[in-house]
């Protein structure tokens, strides 16, 4: 994963730590769809299953996963650029 310094500032943010899979992906997908093409979304995820599933599912849909930021509290911010419909 990219280092913190190289990541672009996000255009939007959602917290998906209040739900479990697959609702994490559902929330991420809906939020990303509401962004402009090329926009960057930061998605806060719990470590473990969401962190394994959400980036993979977004990549499968053609979205561009830019990197992860460790929040040092058991959560991560996943940065994704909207690259597909």
């Amino acid at each position, binding site marked *: 994963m990219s280092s913190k310094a190289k990541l672009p500032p996000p255009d939007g943010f959602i917290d998906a730590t209040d739900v479990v899979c*697959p*609702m994490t*992906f*559902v*929330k991420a*997908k*809906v939020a990303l*769809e*509401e962004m402009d093409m090329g926009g960057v979304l930061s998605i806060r995820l719990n470590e473990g299953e969401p962190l394994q599933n959400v980036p993979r*599912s977004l990549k*499968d*849909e053609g979205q561009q996963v830019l990197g992860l930021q460790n929040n040092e509290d058991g959560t991560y911010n996943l940065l994704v650029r909207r690259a597909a*419909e």
Partner: protein
Amino acid sequence: MAFSDEQLERYSRHIILKEIGPRGQRKLMDGKVLIIGAGGLGSPAAMYLAAAGVGEIGLADADTVDLSNLQRQIIHTTADLGKPKVESARETMLEINPEVRVDVHQTLVTADNIMDLVEKYDFILDGTDNFPAKFLINDACVLARKPLSHAGIIRFQGQLTTYAPGRGPCYRCIFVEPPPPEAVPTCRQAGVVGAMAGVIGCLQALEAVKYLAGTGALLTGWLLTYDAMTMDFRKIKIPSRKNCAVCGENPTILKPFDYQAAVCDL
């Protein structure tokens, strides 16, 4: 329009699908489908379309729930005996999903009312059990330029096709005219296995979902037949007929008309 948290969860399995997604789900929620016949085919179709969150679902049927219906018309229960089918169906659909709007038309569909009935809907689903109704619905959908899922079931067999305006043949291109009333038995006389209504009615619901969500290939130009005894599905290519009386180059049917119902149907 933003999804509520409840909607995100209710429709999550659609939203996850690449082929539907948030956009397709919104289209379903904006969609309007008319189901003619709240019987064997209409039951599963109405239940799945309500569950899918299709915004507005119309139901047209003149009958009341009869004990002999319950073997296959799964939207009705024993407690519904004697109720108008459209009311009984509406109750089940709203129990599944209170978000959808269900408009009921407790009436026989005739040449006099069908154009008004189909007008506001995006997609029409034929779940009737007789040829005069099927030809009437086909003609009206061609004239009103509405996509139509046709289906029929009898014994262990079912068939369906989808008409889309300007994109392929209509039901009349395939069958031209209803058979003579005495030539073909109805389900009443011939019987039908209950789950056949489920298989074919669900396929009709899928055609409506794909049409509304704008995904996949419809059965336009194809007749799908299913034989449950041999478990054969066959997809038969159907050409448009230039001389079709309703969708051909020089149509002679310019407004809907009623065929005489078979004596046994009365």
